[in-house]
């Protein structure tokens, strides 16, 4: 009897833990949805900030985040895929391979602000890209790299070995086998994993603080060498640095809502595609 009571209490504790996690997410989404929903409208999404950022919209920030994410993708997606192809298709069990894998795992643990410091020196100073979309995008690209490598390798692992062996047995070279019999099947999975990484990069703030994000710009960036406004940085400013924090709170909520919809939207798309692919495989 006592055993039963202890078990009941124990499982109750576990249920409470799950309840806490569910409650946190619900409270987060509810609060942002309710208070941010009021300030998001067409004008908010398509106008620039006005009157010292106490009115108007966030269009330049949306545009800036989009442009930076494109630069991030151009660096991180192909490099991540190629590194994953090396690790899964070519690499032998060797000390060097182990070190590469160890580096990738450790890169994903490097604090984002440290990537920011690295970006300041390498892209802004040494390569003279200045504080710009290019510098910020490349910094975020390096940050995203370990995630895209891991995700792409996961996708490559799901391709059965018989696909490779079939091509090799017919006389294809290794690269021909990979190109015709591995990549077509792994590519959708690689892309979904990559989109998940890009969604995380789009929401990052610390790496772009010093590599190109601007407090306020009255115009849209014209080239990759320009500074830019970004959604996460805009939210940070609107909630901590603005001279009239209480009056702009609705705008901050609106920005948070747009950012979260953007990031979760990218996530959902990727997850739905992944789910469908998995079901297709199983059939």
């Amino acid at each position, binding site marked *: 009897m006592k055993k039963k009571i202890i078990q009941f209490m124990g499982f109750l504790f576990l249920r409470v833990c799950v309840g806490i996690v569910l409650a*946190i997410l619900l409270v987060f989404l509810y609060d942002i949805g309710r208070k941010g929903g009021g300030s998001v409208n067409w004008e908010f999404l398509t106008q620039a900030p006005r009157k010292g950022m106490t009115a108007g919209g966030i269009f330049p920030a949306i545009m800036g985040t989009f442009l930076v994410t494109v630069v991030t993708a151009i660096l991180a997606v192909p490099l991540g895929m190629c590194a994953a192809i090396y690790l899964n298709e070519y690499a032998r069990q060797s000390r060097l391979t182990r070190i590469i894998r160890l580096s990738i795992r450790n890169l994903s643990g490097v604090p984002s602000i440290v990537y920011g410091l690295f970006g300041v020196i390498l892209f802004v100073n040494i390569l003279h890209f200045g504080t710009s979309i290019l510098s910020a995008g490349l910094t975020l690209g390096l940050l995203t790299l370990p995630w895209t490598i891991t995700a792409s390798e996961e996708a490559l692992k799901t391709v059965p070995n018989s696909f490779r062996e079939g091509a090799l047995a017919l006389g294809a070279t290794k690269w021909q086998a990979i190109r015709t019999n591995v990549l077509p099947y792994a590519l959708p999975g690689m892309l979904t994993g990559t989109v998940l990484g890009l969604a995380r990069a789009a929401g990052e703030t610390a790496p772009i603080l010093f590599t190109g994000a601007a407090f306020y710009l009255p115009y849209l960036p014209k080239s990759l060498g320009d500074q830019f406004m970004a959604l996460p940085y805009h939210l940070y400013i609107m909630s901590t640095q603005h001279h009239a924090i209480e009056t702009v709170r609705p705008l901050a909520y609106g920005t948070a809502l747009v950012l979260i919809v953007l990031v979760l939207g990218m996530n959902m798309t990727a997850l739905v595609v992944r789910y469908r692919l998995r079901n297709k495989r199983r059939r």
Partner: protein
Amino acid sequence: MAEEILPTRETGPPIAVPGQVRELLRKAKPPSRIREKAIEAFFFACGVLAILVLLGIFFILLTTAVPAFREISVKEFLTSPQWDPTSPEKARYGILSMIVSTLLVTTGSLLIAVPVGVGVAAYLSDVAHWRVREIVKPVVEVLAAIPSVVVGFLGIVLFGPALAKLFGQSNGLNAVNGSVLLAIMALPTIISLSEDSLNAVPAAFAEGSLALGASRWQTLVRVRIPAALSGIIAAIMLGMGRAIGETMTVLMATGNARAFPHGLLSSVRTMTANVAIELGEVPYYTTHYYALFGIGLVLFIMTFAVNLVADLILTKYQQRER
């Protein structure tokens, strides 16, 4: 096209694949050994890039931090609690109070995240009906996807006022607030990795325990969790690494007072927050500027050590599994 070629139970093995390969071989130039080697070398270069980036980060932090120690002694930097680089009399560069703040907030977050995270993982692996699992797992993934700046924002507008009311303070921006938020950010890592290691425990362990008359709870606590402990510890350490390096949430929610922290309710400034606040204002190539990179170097070494230990535990654990 990919859909037609995929082997399915109805169509049997991939029929179109050999044809495709043969056609390709007919069209292609005779395979050249040099070309194959070149392609392999290209992919190899992409793989090695990961090592170069990691070394590059360390090297750049080190070379930029070193000039700071022409004026500051390493001992003072690490053990003095006074950080006042803009003082008119004598600039002080001690990061001890920031290190303590970082450790304080991280410890606080783990006190919350470890029981809850391991609890959720145990629930998912041992108790939950598969339908519940299908709901909870995406919830955890969504939680992991929320940008840190949004979590920090909620710390200001949601937890801050609540804590202020609870403890009778003017605003709730303090170490507790930061700990709660960091716990939320560390939870997804701890949950998913702990669940993985619980699932990796051989079923025979639990079966043996149940056959001897133990209850499911006893089996979970005395057999399954101890068997998965190394993986759970690694998960906790990875969560800890994330908490140490997190910037935006602590920057926004802990109040950023420079003083040495006196307790969980005092306003603190972590290493990450200090870099984020000061690097934007500091003139380039001054001792202050270099010292901020010194903080970055300390951060890098701390997180690297934590991650490396977690990694060693995981690798050892996986080898034992094989």
